[in-house]
């Protein structure tokens, strides 16, 4: 039964949900863009502030497990959602049509992500995953007058539905075999060697989650959806959605022994190799920045899959550190794209030529972008290097030499396109340009956020000890 203590533990989730309701009522009463954005941001901040109070929880609410991993992931989700809200306000200011509903969708999806990372039961997992995905369809198709955005929404809807089918089938098989849906009990019930049905069920679940993580060969939707969706929706998809799904995958692997059986490990190893190489190779000749970032995020989750394969004590910590660095970096990189595309003007500014010579027009914005791309490439003194260091260390410690080789090869290939983007920023300007950031971008809240993210990337890269301590403390619990 739910007790008052349980409700207190759930407080961040409840507040995000309540904020969504408030936003909805606000829209019904009187539309006000800035007001809605402000309420959403305030709700997320309050939830974020309350989050540390809920940990360590005496006992978790039914169907959920509020442990260190959930709190860590929750904090990252709320932060990313907050940044997305800020950038959305910037982006939607010039949007023709209703603007406020975007925040409503975003808050619902955030609540879904918060529940997903804490779910301890397959039913909870499924419901919260859908709560995360459904609003995303709407967010991706939000500027539905633009053809690509609608295409992105529908594509994501269809493929997501297919992935859900896989996931459900997998759960059904596991349930048929064991009779349990509870992760904790599931782990205890399976002491013997897993049989074919269990393996098939687990593999199907991995495939279903792999769709959401856009692991090669289930990645085909990624570039189109990243390119077509409005920039803030893409940010949300690349950060919050991926993070939550990855955390739940990690939880599954830790909880149920079938996921760490040798056969499934080999499968994930192959998928990881395919993903890191495939993502990087496909990005090689992209001229569209959003597609390029999409492929790059595919590759990054390929690196991170090492944590799933290794599955030892260091794996959770690696996941935490890598996700922190990935989030800061991705938010900054997509943030620049959002800012250049703001205010909304039909299509996003995602062609590489738009960014040519950015450094000589907007040095600080270009510096933010340079830092974030260096971090994506994993160059020392940026956060990305710490993440990559952790993943390689994990691979070496677990003696996964194939994966380590894959990371090295993938990073070498990746450099090529990251450098191509970076150097474009510094090339002389072409004679004419189509779009540009407004002059006062730096003094607006979106610009300030971006600069703060870039500073965070550098600080995490130069002095990562506090972040590592934080992650280590939470992943031990």
């Amino acid at each position, binding site marked *: 039964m739910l007790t008052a203590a349980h409700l207190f533990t759930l407080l961040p989730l409840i507040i995000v949900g309540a904020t969504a309701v408030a936003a909805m009522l606000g829209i019904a009463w009187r539309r006000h863009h800035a007001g809605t954005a402000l309420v959403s941001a305030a709700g997320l901040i309050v939830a974020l502030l309350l989050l540390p109070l809920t940990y360590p929880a005496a006992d978790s609410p039914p169907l959920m497990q509020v442990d260190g991993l959930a709190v860590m992931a929750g904090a990252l989700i709320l932060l990313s959602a907050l940044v997305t809200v800020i950038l959305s306000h910037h982006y939607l200011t010039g949007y023709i049509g209703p603007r406020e509903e975007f925040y409503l969708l975003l808050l619902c999806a955030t609540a879904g992500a918060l529940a997903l990372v804490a779910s301890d039961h397959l039913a909870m997992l499924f419901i919260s995953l859908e709560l995360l995905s459904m609003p995303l369809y709407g967010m991706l198709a939000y500027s539905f007058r633009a053809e690509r955005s609608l295409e992105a929404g529908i594509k994501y809807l269809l493929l997501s539905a297919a992935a859900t089918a896989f996931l459900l089938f997998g759960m059904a098989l596991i349930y048929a075999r064991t009779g349990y849906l509870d992760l904790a009990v599931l782990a205890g019930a399976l002491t013997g060697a897993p049989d074919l049905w269990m393996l098939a069920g687990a593999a199907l679940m991995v495939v279903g989650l792999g769709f959401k993580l856009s692991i090669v060969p289930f990645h085909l939707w990624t570039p189109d959806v990243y390119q077509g969706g409005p920039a803030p929706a893409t940010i949300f998809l690349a950060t919050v959605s991926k993070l939550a799904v990855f955390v739940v995958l990690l939880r599954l692997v830790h909880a149920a022994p079938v996921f760490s059986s040798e056969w499934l490990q080999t499968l994930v190893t192959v998928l990881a190799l395919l993903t890191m190489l495939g993502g990087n190779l496909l990005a090689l000749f992209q001229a569209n920045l959003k597609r390029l970032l999409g492929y790059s995020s595919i590759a990054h989750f390929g690196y991170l899959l090492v944590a799933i394969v290794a599955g030892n004590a260091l794996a959770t910590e690696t996941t935490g550190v890598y996700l922190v660095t990935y989030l800061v970096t991705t938010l900054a990189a997509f943030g620049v794209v959002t800012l250049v595309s703001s205010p909304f003007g039909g299509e996003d500014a995602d062609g590489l030529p738009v960014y040519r010579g950015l450094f000589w027009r907007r040095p600080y914005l270009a510096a933010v972008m340079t830092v974030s791309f260096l971090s994506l490439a994993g160059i020392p003194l940026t956060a990305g290097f710490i993440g990559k*260091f952790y993943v390689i260390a994990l691979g070496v410690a677990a003696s996964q030499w194939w994966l380590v080789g894959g990371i090295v090869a993938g990073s070498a290939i990746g450099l090529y396109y990251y450098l191509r983007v970076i150097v474009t920023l510094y090339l002389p300007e072409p004679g004419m340009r189509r779009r540009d950031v407004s002059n006062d971008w730096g003094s607006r809240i979106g610009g300030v956020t971006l600069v703060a993210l870039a500073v965070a990337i550098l600080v995490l890269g130069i002095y*990562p000890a506090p972040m*590592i301590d934080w992650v280590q403390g939470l992943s031990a619990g």
Partner: protein
Amino acid sequence: MILVWLIVIPFLGGLLCWYADRLGEQMPRWIALATMLFVLVISLWLWVTGDFALPQGGQSQWLLEWRTDWIPRFGIEIHLAMDGLSLILVALTGFLGALAVLCSWHEIGHRIGFFHLNLLWILGGVVGVFLALDLFLFFLFWEMMLVPMYFLIALWGHSGSAGQTRIRAATRFFIYTQASGLLMLVAILALVFIHFGNTGQLSFSYDVLRQAEVPEAVAPWLMLGFFVAFAVKLPVVPFHGWLPDAHAQAPTAGSVDLAGILLKTAAYGMLRFGLPLFPAESSAFAPVAMTLGLVSIIYGAVLACGQQDIKRLIAYTSISHMGFVLIAIYSGSELAIQGAVVLMVAHAFSSAGLFILSGQLYERIHTRDMRIMGGLWGRIPALPGFTLFFVAASLGMPATANFVGEFMILFGTFPSAPVVVVIACSGLVLAAIYSLILMQRVHFGPEYRNGILAGPDWREYFMMLTLLALVLLVGLYPQPILDTTAGLASLTAELFAGAPGDQLTKLSGEVR
């Protein structure tokens, strides 16, 4: 603390240059010059006041040391230390850095502040490489200095024939070095975790990891991980693909830094990390390394003979010279290792001289193609004379520093590997050929065009005369450098004791 300042000063200076761009065109140049001279003065002061006696039992081999915790989770420290070799190379960095600022005084006309930011950050990274003793920190600086170098080549480089080549050259440089660097990172991590498995202590410290007991099956692979990273940067022949293009497209300051200092980080890495961490494996690997060195010497020299682009020619000669350094490092002889240090210094001076001269030629005749030079001896005052001098230094004429280095290397290696030395000597003959080809095609022969060109101004005279004086000084009296590095050389030679090099140690002891 002074070691920290040596690293931080160039970085701060670089930022200052970027801001100073608004205060006028000359401002960044003066700031950059002052910064590098500051580094030079500090290191020279350390040299004068330092005590470089051979470390006696129990005494630290470091002249200065500074350490503090950084990432305690992995036992990573900020651990800086300086001995004779680091000191010489840091001083060299300061000197060539100042020279690089001077030689780009007129060459770089746009985005001056940002140019000097990149230049100084390269130098800061290089100083970091020379001082870092924690393996994580070393790797960090090793990779970090690539980014500004990339910008230097990609943004201020010379466009080759087809529009985008400088960016391609820069990208290739970056990918070669970064990918090989990651192999080193993997090797470092494997070493750390093997040590962790043995003792339960997680540490990246140099002193700790030297004691690590690596299983025999793994050790050669780890040694190779380090070797490949250093071999790419040195460069050794199968890994040299990035060098000629990078040199040909880089601005003069970039070439000076690249040839003068960045290549030396590789030799330094081998002496400081590669050999001491894996002494037995390195000694077993020595024949292969020496063969690669020989291939580099011959291959670099032969290809240098066939180049049309003057900077590519000099780039290939670098490959050849670095082959000698590689042989010396793996010879296990104290004399040869000291010779390698002298040759590194000498090569920094002579190749910097040649690159600066080709930059000055480019400013006057706007080409680096030797087919359309010819007969410049009569058309430019003074410059051809300087060229003759540095060419002579590069081919190892007695009285120049290069002669001392090469002689010591060959003499020191002979007892252990006579065949190698005999073959390497043929490289000297080839050196004479390519040097004379350069001289002949640029400054003698029929005049391609007529008319007198401007002679060097005071700035150019100053650079050339300083380099000339240094080459002669080291060539005639190399003892200060030998005294400074004696400690390191004897320690390194001891590592090979038991291997073919040990009778050599005694021999070189008598010579000294």
